[in-house]
């Protein structure tokens, strides 16, 4: 079995190497000479160029040749990348190359694991949207920044952690959140309970899963998610008022199917109000299935608070051992119910 790839091998794989000259200061000819390998759409390989600029800045900061950057990723884009791409004749007019930069940094952090955001010191534009409480292992998170006020209120009231993702969760945001947990000496191997306020639709669950994946990458391996937005939080009439049809283009077909499969595992009794099959008279063929979703906002703050009081409060302030005992008692009850079910069928 091969050994874990060395840092040098991982860098080589990503076409990253050391340059003595400052890449972002070099003229077009120099950029073309050094970064035209496997270039297709533009005169230079933009991914390779971006990664090397990022890596060079990291090297200079770590070697104390430069102070940490302490600015936003967007500022880094303007200060280092955009002008260099322009000089190399590689600035796209239609393509969002800022997104490409983010993807390349995520690749360097998560995929090939050669750096961390904090190595450069990037500032997190969502710093104000997260809190680490004294009961740090209880994490309330929302997909939208609109729930921020509610999160802050709950976080302050119960001294728990809270995070408003504000759309697709950023790896940077998660890295800094986990760093704050570490600073507070929270054991990352303990159980973490996550209370999720995301839209009840495929995109909402993709966002939730991406966040969980990021947490796992940074070392939180024992997490349990408790959904706060699902059809059983509403009455059938409320669902009929709040629901909206989920878009089903071909590109979303598989995602929608997977989401439905996951939803069915949970056996929400009101899920029936979120699925509608068109019936064709005189035809044996099954009609088209329309799926409906629920916005996170369809559950009122009052109801979310009530639910948290039932499901979150019993978990507060417990050590891992006490949590385990608490969960074992619940498991005991679940097993008794299962036993009765098996005896009576």
């Amino acid at each position: 079995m091969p050994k874990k790839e060395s840092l040098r091998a991982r860098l080589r794989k990503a076409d990253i190497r050391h340059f003595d000259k400052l890449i972002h200061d070099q003229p077009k000819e120099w950029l073309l000479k050094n970064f035209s390998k496997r270039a297709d759409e533009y005169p230079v390989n933009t991914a390779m160029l971006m990664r090397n600029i990022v890596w060079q800045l990291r090297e200079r900061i770590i070697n104390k040749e430069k102070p940490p950057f302490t600015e936003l990723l967007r500022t880094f884009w303007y200060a280092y990348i955009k002008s260099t791409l322009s000089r190399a004749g590689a600035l796209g007019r239609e393509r969002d190359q800022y997104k490409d930069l983010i993807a390349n940094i995520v690749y360097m952090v998560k995929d090939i694991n050669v750096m961390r955001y904090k190595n450069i010191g990037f500032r997190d534009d969502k710093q104000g949207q997260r809190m680490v409480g004294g009961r740090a292992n209880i994490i309330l998170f929302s997909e939208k920044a609109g729930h921020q006020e509610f999160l802050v209120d709950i976080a302050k009231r119960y001294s728990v952690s809270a995070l408003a993702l504000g759309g697709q969760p950023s790896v940077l945001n998660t890295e800094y959140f986990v760093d704050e947990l570490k600073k507070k000496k929270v054991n990352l191997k303990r159980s973490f309970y996550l209370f999720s306020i995301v839209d009840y639709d495929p995109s909402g669950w993709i966002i939730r899963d991406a966040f969980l994946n990021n947490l796992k990458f940074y070392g939180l391996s024992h997490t349990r998610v408790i959904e706060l937005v699902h059809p059983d939080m509403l009455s059938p009439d409320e669902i009929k008022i709040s629901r909206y049809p989920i878009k089903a283009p071909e590109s979303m077909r598989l995602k929608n199917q997977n989401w439905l499969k996951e939803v069915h595992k949970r056996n929400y009794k009101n899920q029936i109000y979120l699925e509608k099959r068109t019936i064709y008279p005189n035809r044996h063929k099954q009609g088209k299935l329309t799926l409906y979703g629920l916005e996170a906002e369809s559950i009122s703050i009052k109801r979310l608070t009530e639910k948290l009081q039932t499901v979150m409060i019993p978990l507060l302030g417990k050590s891992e051992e006490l949590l385990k005992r608490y969960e074992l008692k619940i498991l005991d009850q679940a097993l008794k119910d299962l036993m009765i079910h098996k005896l009576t069928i």
Partner: protein
Amino acid sequence: MPKKEKKPEYIRFNTIKEYISSALKLRSTDKTVKKFIKQFDTAIEATLKDAGKSTKEDRRRTVMDKDILPALEKHLGKRQLTWQEAAGQILKYPAADLGKISKAINNYLRKEE
């Protein structure tokens, strides 16, 4: 300090990678293949040790079917855990995973209702 014994590697990394790419026409991550091999290597080692033990207990020098088949069944065959084994396994889980088991049981009961 005694030298730590090196774990034997029964399955070759490249064989698995090549099989996935040429026979299955798929790609695979190194991490996944390593995890797969580790599980199998552990199971093979445990199977061989059990079979060897059975051979020695029978005062033979040749490992035979009657040694290897029960060991294979124990370590690689699909079988149900005894209730003691299941309970032992459950007690090892951290709190968050115990919660997931309760939830799975409750989901099952709701489905059956």
